[in-house]
């Protein structure tokens, strides 16, 4: 029986999420025995033509070419999984969405007219149908393996609606907000990292993006009580998942309030 074909695609990103697959040192060869790695440029020169059973898509759409390319990837893929903050929310490069891209171009490039880029960085789901998503900047490789296992064996991919707070409780962490007055996005951030930041005595900075039904207003109030200014609150929501709707709206409110 032919092995399922796995493809990995990159759009605007840092490569970190696809590196997570190569960081599965204990499992990489086992995974490679269960699938045909048909297209994974970071790892192989070999390119097997599609269609593909599973496509992992890293990165956001920021150029016209990439907007066309994602359509082709979708057409070739039975199951399409977006991996990481860039693919699921536009990533840190979506900070351009609240700025003037022409100005950005001229700050970074001496010949801005050569730089072909769209005004917005958009998540994959704004362009094509997405079957599953993995959050995080970067993704958690254990979640990646669980998802691949579920897809390969026909099970249901695990989904969580929990927040980072739940993971803190599971780890027996002392709450950094309550105990130390440290600003923390844990209550409104999707679980998945294992409550890493609070375990290292810092507040969560939201790299897994908003949890469903996030009460961002309450958290914003808590951030203010912990000493953050309106501008600080704006920035903390406007980072690696700046264009995720819940974070974007909360940032807009505080941005308006921080203007003189």
């Amino acid at each position, binding site marked *: 029986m032919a092995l399922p074909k796995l493809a990995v695609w990159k759009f605007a990103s840092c490569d970190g999420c696809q590196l997570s697959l190569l960081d599965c040192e204990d499992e990489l060869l086992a995974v490679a025995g269960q699938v045909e790695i048909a297209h994974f440029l970071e790892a192989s020169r070999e390119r097997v033509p599609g269609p593909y059973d599973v496509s992992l898509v890293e990165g956001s759409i920021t150029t016209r070419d990439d907007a066309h390319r994602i359509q082709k990837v979708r057409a070739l893929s039975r199951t399409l999984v977006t991996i990481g903050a860039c693919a699921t929310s536009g990533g840190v490069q979506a900070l351009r969405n609240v700025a003037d891209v022409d100005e950005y171009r001229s700050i*970074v490039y001496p010949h801005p007219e050569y730089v072909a880029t769209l005004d917005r960085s958009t998540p994959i789901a704004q362009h094509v149908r997405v079957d599953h998503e993995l959050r995080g900047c970067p993704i958690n490789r254990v979640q990646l393996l669980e998802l691949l296992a579920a897809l390969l064996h026909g099970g249901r991919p695990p989904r969580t609606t929990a927040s980072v707070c739940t993971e803190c409780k599971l780890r027996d962490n002392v709450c950094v907000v309550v105990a130390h007055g440290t600003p923390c996005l844990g209550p409104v951030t999707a679980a998945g990292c294992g409550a890493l930041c609070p375990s290292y005595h810092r507040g969560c900075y939201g790299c897994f993006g908003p949890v469903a039904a996030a009460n961002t207003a309450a958290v914003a109030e808590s951030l203010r009580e912990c000493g953050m200014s309106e501008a600080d609150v704006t920035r903390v929501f406007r980072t690696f998942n700046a264009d995720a709707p819940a974070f974007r709206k909360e940032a807009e409110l505080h941005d308006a309030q921080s203007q003189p």
Partner: protein
Amino acid sequence: MTHKVSRKIDVRELARVEGEGALHVRVRGGVVHEARLDIYEPPRFFEAFLRGRGYTEPPDITARICGICPVAYQMSSCQALEAACGVTVEGAIADLRRLLYCAEWIESHTLHIYLLHAPDFLGYDSVVALAKDAPELVQRGLKLKQVGNELLELIGGRAIHPVNIRLGGFYRAPTRREFRPVVERLHWALEAAVETVRLVSGFVFPDYEHDHEYVALSSPGTYAIERGRLRSTGGLDIAPAQFEEHIGEEHVAHSTALHARIKERGRYLVGPQARYTLNGQWLSPVARQAADEAGLGETCRNPFRSIIVRAVETVYAVEEALRLLADYQPPDPPYVEVPPRAGVGHGITEAPRGSLFHRYELDADGIIQSARIVPPTSQSQPSIEDDLRGLVETHLDLPDDELTLRCEQAIRNYDPCISCATHFLHLEVDRG
């Protein structure tokens, strides 16, 4: 067919490099007319959106430039921002930073040696194909890489985009007890790294040498990683704050890239071969011996042999990690305060691929007024293209497929990080 006068080599999607690049070589009348490494990775505008951000944010934000070497971005940004604020970090905190950096060298170098580069020398398309024939060799590479990742995870919280790094140091310093299991694994890793040097020094290398000016941080008495002066084989010897006086970026006609050049002389090369040549005398004992046994000598000018230098540096990083851990005491507190002030600060550290420059300008509240980042790949790019040209000129007798593979190898020799470089390079969307 191998002796036709006009040839064209196009590799539209380079494999086993970090990021999206292509190479184009044009030969007319037996002469190389063009040799280009193209970057078509989309720009992400980091330097632009850093403006207006708080001065504590760049370690987290610039890490996202590169998933392969986030620690390098965190360390160069910390150094630059602390310099802007007039703070120097010394002692146990500085040692812990160096330890974290060693972990990234182990992980990144081993990734490149075993997963990206070795398949070229052994005749495979990928490490997965190689693993079918040589499972033990690949297992060793994966396990060695994993030791680097374990150390990164212990200090940083996670290996990609670590969370435990802040201006002035760390949020929390791991205890001696937490390090105990990884110390055992590092002892194994030292053996494995030495074996790796033996393995790769036995590869067959094409006959090719270049004459690039080598540039690296240098700090007499130690193999420089996270601090030092920028020195070169051509006599450059500057503090990080003088970088922009001596190194400029040039727009080359018909090129898509801004190329970094030493203003007085031109192209140069950063990375493992530059570090080895400038600082090889300060390698640790086991690393020095491994280099000698591999026949490296005082310098290494064959880019294909960079894989040996990377292996020697892996031995060094493991040995240095063990040294730092031997008398590790958790710094308490794990950071020094870095109060904001108006000013400009510069930082250079040695990313696995070479020197990484950051500059920040702050106002009195610590809000970033301007930022500039020059990653290693954009510094080395003119030299990489020069290699491409030189290599094609000396190997015109090869058939197209072999010459193409040789050119791809010539790029992979430098472990280029295109994701990093792209924010600073013009891109050409020319896939036709």
